[in-house]
């Protein structure tokens, strides 16, 4: 019975990030990268994978040290842990994907202040075991990645006629340059949030 409950909890954690507690569509967290790096699909995918890496590492470390963690230094510990893994992710991009590193610019170091990561350390990893924390990190991380890739695909399609570099619009298509600019990010995100709210209202 206990085992069944544990499996149900794990399944609930594993799926939460994709819809019920999706960081972008439900919790409206991580807006900085969501708006800034969704001009192209590959940019969003790289950012998403960086967030997954940092989330998994930070949740793992936080879960391991959770019993030794003093309440008043916990935020410092979270930031220290996150900053270390973000720096590793940034160095990795600079070394092996230099062009993408240049394109993403300051937004990779800015993952340090991404609310999703610190929120998961506080809400999940500091209260749960390592397995639940890793599953939560993967769920939230990939939920975030899928959402920003969707947003980037919409923007890239309208701004350049391509999705992940693959041409989908006919040659006669006139690109909507505004979609690659900040205004396009806000409009696309607004429409995506409205759609998500409409679906959840129908579900309720």
């Amino acid at each position, binding site marked *: 019975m206990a085992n069944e409950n544990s499996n149900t909890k794990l399944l609930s954690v594993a799926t939460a990030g994709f819809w019920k507690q999706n960081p972008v569509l439900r919790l409206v967290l991580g807006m900085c990268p969501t708006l800034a790096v969704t*001009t192209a699909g590959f940019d969003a995918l790289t950012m998403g994978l960086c967030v997954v890496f940092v989330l998994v590492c930070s949740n793992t*470390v936080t879960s391991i*040290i959770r019993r*030794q*963690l*003093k309440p*008043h*230094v916990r935020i*410092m*510990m979270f930031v*220290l*842990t996150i*900053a*270390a893994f973000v*720096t*590793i992710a940034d*160095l*990795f991009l*600079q*070394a*092996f994907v*230099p062009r993408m590193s*240049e394109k993403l*610019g300051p937004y990779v170091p800015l993952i340090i202040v991404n609310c999703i990561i610190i929120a998961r350390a506080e809400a999940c990893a500091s209260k749960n075991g390592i397995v639940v924390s890793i599953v939560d990190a993967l769920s939230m991380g990939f939920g975030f990645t899928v959402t920003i890739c969707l947003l980037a695909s919409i923007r890239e399609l309208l*701004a350049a006629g391509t999705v992940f570099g693959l041409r989908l619009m006919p040659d006669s298509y006139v*690109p909507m*340059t505004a979609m*690659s*600019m900040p205004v396009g990010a806000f409009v696309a995100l607004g429409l995506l949030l409205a759609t998500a709210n409409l679906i959840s209202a129908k579900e309720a």
Partner: protein
Amino acid sequence: MVNSVKLFFRESWLLVACAFLFGLLLAVTDAAWAPKIAQNKIDKTNAMLQSIFTDGHEFEKLPEKIDILSGKVKTGESTVYKVTTDGRIVGWAFTAEGFGFADKIQLIVGVDAAFKKMRGFAVVSSYETPGFGDRIKGDFYRNQFVGAPAANLNLVKGGDPSAIDSDIVAITGATVSSTAVVNIINRYMDTVKQAMVSKGVISSGQ
């Protein structure tokens, strides 16, 4: 006093230990990847220089940087590259930067061996508006600098962009970015030339 020290260590030992461990982890990671990151930067610069000097094969960075002054205040510095083919100098290139419409624009500017004519420029980094200001990277704008005099350039809003002279025709809808590039080049060109003459790298008569 002893109690305060004990309290400090009891409360913060984990933070101190983790800071040490993460510091160590970052030091190891940086040591492992720093050479590759440095090589990537060199490769990028060489690719930029190659796009300006198609006849240049070797690019040598001069050891001393040139200070860019505004009055007596240092406002920037420039790295100079010697471009050679089979030991013969075919030109010079220098880095230049300044503010554009959105953020800083970083350029590499190429000139011929005599510092008389421009060989062109390449944009190292810029965050100009997509579809408008970022057209400073396009052929329409960049080609106007190839063969232009290595002296003060003027930005004009109309004219013949194919004419090789000191007039640079602005990009429609991106006057600020077009002006920024011309201003950056003007600000650096004379200072770099004078510095190289004073250092004896090129002669004033050239």
